[in-house]
């Protein structure tokens, strides 16, 4: 039996002085949010209903406060080379105003964090880290860039981050900025004005939908939030909490650090070996171990599982071979999919079980439910 909370209030919490509040805390309170402590921050977990918020992002749009995310800026003549050395990707090849998904790996190839790297200028990069890992990433990067003519600044406190995600996002953002959004492609970023404030406007997200992430000054966050709500509400925009962010990213097959990614795993287990650029000029931390893992092949690989049962596989549950009952893997994330209407999960399984169509079982609190391996993602948006 997997461990589970003893009492029904798991996830509930009150505002505590030990945690940090975002610049939008008053807005969330006024909207009646339930809060949760997440990586030292007090964050809205939901405003009304997880499922309604999830569906808003899939059908119209959702508004998220992501100010807990960590911002690290690398500036200086050798910033690009320093990052080529520090990360598994090749930030020096990122075009101006573009973004790339990358990872910071340890010497042994283990994932320290997954990151989005934006190139703001030739010598200026913005790295966005998971809230739970920001301090570790900052300290690690500081050491790794020490020999280069460049500087690292932790600007987490200088940025608030608001995301608008969903198919009508562009219609909501467009009237608030003079930037022509048709010129801002997926994974691009531009400096602009939005609701009369200076912002970095990026076409990125973590929901599987079109959408924007708006980096702004904390003092401007309330006004931008209010303007987005004002323009967006007639389109069906809903404020959205972290609970639906998790089911949205799961449906989109996106890994979550701490679930699908960890120090014990390399990008290859997660099916993300493509983020490792072995061909780059600069030697980089983890190269040897990662090359070995690439050549040997991963012992366990990340797969998607679906089920027609009512109960969902959850993180930590054992995956079994139905023929022998042997444990052949572990669930990393799972939930009832609001969009698909049945349970979905991601799991690490032994390589021989990774083929789509393979029938497996999951030990769901003592009973063995049938699941089937499916390709990721579970959900892909229709290109408009």
């Amino acid at each position, binding site marked *: 039996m997997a461990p*589970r*909370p*003893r*009492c*029904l*209030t*798991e*996830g*509930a919490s*009150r505002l505590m002085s030990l945690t940090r509040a975002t610049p939008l805390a008053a807005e969330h309170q006024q909207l009646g949010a*339930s809060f949760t402590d997440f990586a030292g921050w007090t964050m809205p*977990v*939901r405003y009304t*209903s*997880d*499922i*309604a918020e*999830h569906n808003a992002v899939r059908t119209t749009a959702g508004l998220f406060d992501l100010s807990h995310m960590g911002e690290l800026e690398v500036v200086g003549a050798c910033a690009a080379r320093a990052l080529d050395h520090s990360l598994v990707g090749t930030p020096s090849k990122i075009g101006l105003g573009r973004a790339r998904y990358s990872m910071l790996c340890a010497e042994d190839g283990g994932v320290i964090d997954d990151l989005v790297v934006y190139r703001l200028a030739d010598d200026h990069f913005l790295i966005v880290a998971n809230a739970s890992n920001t301090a570790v990433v900052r300290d690690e990067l500081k050491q790794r860039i020490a020999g280069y003519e460049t500087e690292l600044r932790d600007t987490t406190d200088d940025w608030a981050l608001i995301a608008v995600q969903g198919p009508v996002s562009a219609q909501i953002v467009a009237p608030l900025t003079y930037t022509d959004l048709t010129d801002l492609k997926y994974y691009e970023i531009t400096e602009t004005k939005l609701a009369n404030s200076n912002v970095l406007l990026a076409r990125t997200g973590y929901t599987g939908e079109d959408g924007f992430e708006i980096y702004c000054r904390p003092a401007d966050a309330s006004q931008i939030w209010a303007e987005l709500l004002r323009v967006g509400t007639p389109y069906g925009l809903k404020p959205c909490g972290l*609970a*639906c962010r*998790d*089911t949205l990213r799961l449906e989109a097959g996106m890994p979550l650090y701490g679930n699908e990614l960890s120090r014990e795993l390399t990008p290859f287990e997660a099916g993300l070996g493509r983020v490792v650029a072995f061909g780059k000029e600069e030697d980089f931390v983890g190269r040897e171990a990662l090359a070995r893992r690439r050549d040997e092949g991963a012992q366990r690989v990340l797969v998607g599982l679906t089920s027609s049962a*009512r*109960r*969902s596989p*959850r993180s930590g549950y054992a995956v079994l071979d139905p023929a022998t009952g042997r444990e052949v893997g572990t669930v990393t994330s799972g*939930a*009832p999919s*609001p969009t698909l209407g049945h349970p979905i999960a991601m799991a690490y399984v032994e390589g021989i079980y990774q083929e789509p169509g393979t029938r497996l079982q999951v030990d769901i*609190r003592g009973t063995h439910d049938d699941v089937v391996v499916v390709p990721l993602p579970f959900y892909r948006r229709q290109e408009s």
Partner: protein
Amino acid sequence: MSVPTELHYTADHEWIALDGELATVGITAFAGEALGDVVYVDLPAVGTAISTGDACGEIESTKSVSDLFAPVDGEVVELNEAVVADPGLLNTDPYQAGWLLRVKVTGPTKLLDAAAYEALIGGE
């Protein structure tokens, strides 16, 4: 969040309406809000003997799974089929349409009154 004064409660966030030896059991609005949207309810069959504090069912939301703990000693005499079919009733109407079980109480009960429960959840 208001806590109905006529009901009894447990520290596991269940409410109990006592009518002679018959107890109607549900979960509180506080629990419903903490869980998020409930999508699946697993209840003990009619005739099952339950004893105080033991897990006797499950409540699953998009976010998590929690045990339902027996609030009293007794025998399950009726299930709310409507809430099994539409678990969202636990979120929308936890004290009326969202009731879970009727139990014939067979032993002494040890329950909180509304004031004690309200104090427990911080007087929200």
